[in-house]
């Protein structure tokens, strides 16, 4: 199956492929029609590939060392091919790749909408419990029994609120 190249600036299929030689180095960009127009690629008089490369923070051909998402094994090359990411953690791993794209892709770069507050509260509670349990183990190991007792009480408290209101 044909897998068309994605635009370097957004994720639409690239239809404009440009190669320029500057200082004996080959620079290549793949753009969709809109981005090509927006960047003035279709207007030969006012266009400089160097500017574009700079703006898109793209490196000339020998690309930066391949970053890999530890969670799912996804690479930057995979993103270039599919225009999709591998897993939620990819957004952290490839943040430097994504950030410059967001501005042209969206109205803003920071989320201002709905927040899954129940799921987040559940997660933070879960994280807290995990931390407390580690604390408890360590307190017992180092024979700080007063701390251990206090931590155990706290764990029970957290577990209790879990049981009663698992969503909060």
């Amino acid at each position, binding site marked *: 199956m044909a897998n068309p190249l994605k635009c370097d600036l957004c994720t639409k299929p690239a239809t404009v492929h440009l190669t320029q030689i500057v200082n004996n180095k080959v620079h290549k960009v793949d753009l969709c029609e809109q981005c090509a127009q927006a960047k003035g690629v279709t207007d030969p008089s006012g266009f400089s590939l160097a500017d574009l490369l700079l703006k898109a923070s793209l490196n000339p051909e020998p690309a930066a060392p391949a970053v890999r998402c530890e969670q799912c094994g996804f690479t930057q090359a995979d993103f270039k091919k599919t225009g*999709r990411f591998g897993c939620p953690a990819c957004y952290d791993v490839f943040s430097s790749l994504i950030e410059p794209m967001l501005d042209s892709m*969206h*109205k803003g*770069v920071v*989320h201002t909408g*709905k927040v899954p507050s129940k799921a*987040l509260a559940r997660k933070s509670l879960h994280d807290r419990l995990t931390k407390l349990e580690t604390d408890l183990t360590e307190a017992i190991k180092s024979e700080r029994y007063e701390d251990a007792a206090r931590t155990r009480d706290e764990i029970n408290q957290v577990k209790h609120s879990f049981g009663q209101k698992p969503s909060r």
Partner: protein
Amino acid sequence: MTISSLIDSPSELTDATGSKTAIVLMTRVRLARNLSGNPFPGWAKPAQREEILATCREAVAAAAPMKRGLSVTLDELSELERQILVERHLISRELSGTKAGAGVVISRDQAISVMINEEDHLRIQVLRSGFQLKKTWTAIDELDSALEERLDYAFSPTLGYLTACPTNLGTAMRASAMMHLPALVIASQMEKVVRAVNQLGMVVRGLFGEGSDASGSIFQISNQTTLGESEEGIIKRLGSVLNSIIEHELNARQKLLEADPNKIYDKIGRAFGILQNGHVLSSSEAMNLLSLIRLGVDLGVFPDTNRSVIDRLLIEAQPGHLQHAQRGVCEPGQRDLIRAGLLRGEFANFTKPNFNSSAAGPN
């Protein structure tokens, strides 16, 4: 509920009571959601997809509005059944093409569908006939909050809901309206409208989304961006864009009637003649003819009550529905004969056009 009982019961779209809004045929909101710590469907291994499918199916089917609905995996559905669901806008073309590890849960009234392992783990959709953006958003917001009780969504405080494609980040919401805009098409103004709408950050697509054509003068208008704006903000902005498109369509109708009423009545009258007597009708020709009859209803050429008949036929004349009614798969050429037959039957007893009592006055 089984797939065959779902297919045989009327969909939200064919429901006659909802057809009061003339220009906006239906409103739809969809949310993309993913489970944290799991690879997105396009990158997940088959076993992971199955696992995600099972988790999501269980949680979705347990949500109150989905009780006694349909919950199936895609491989349980025949080609024809998938096509019917696409024609009812209950699943996407993309989902209908997946082989393994995908599913859909559809509410009993066919107003809600949740696709599992499409591009994202969950694609939640609520659909209402007519122009009901706010109600549709409220309904989907509630369902989403209910699902959140059981599922850990992938979310970032700065990027919002994390989606496989960065174009959906943030609210991960696409709100859309399906609009019938025949006068703008006849007056060749659609291109202008599309450009203006694009500048406002909205997208115009054909009836079945990306890459589909706009036969029947039916268009989908939706928000393009999802990050940096709240759901309510997007809904409000889309609503005002839709209202202004409605205004333009009404103006275009008025202008057509003022400039040359015979031209528009001739189109409607001919469409009626072909629907009553034609013997070979392709899907797209049928859509265009039905669209003209629908315009006729809006202009008072046919009684208002006929609009719901047209809206039903717009769906029943689609290839999947047609073949289902015939109880068998058939070739496109054969289908064109059957489609013409169906429409001849429907229009044999249809109210005759009355061009004198129409909105613009006697001609």
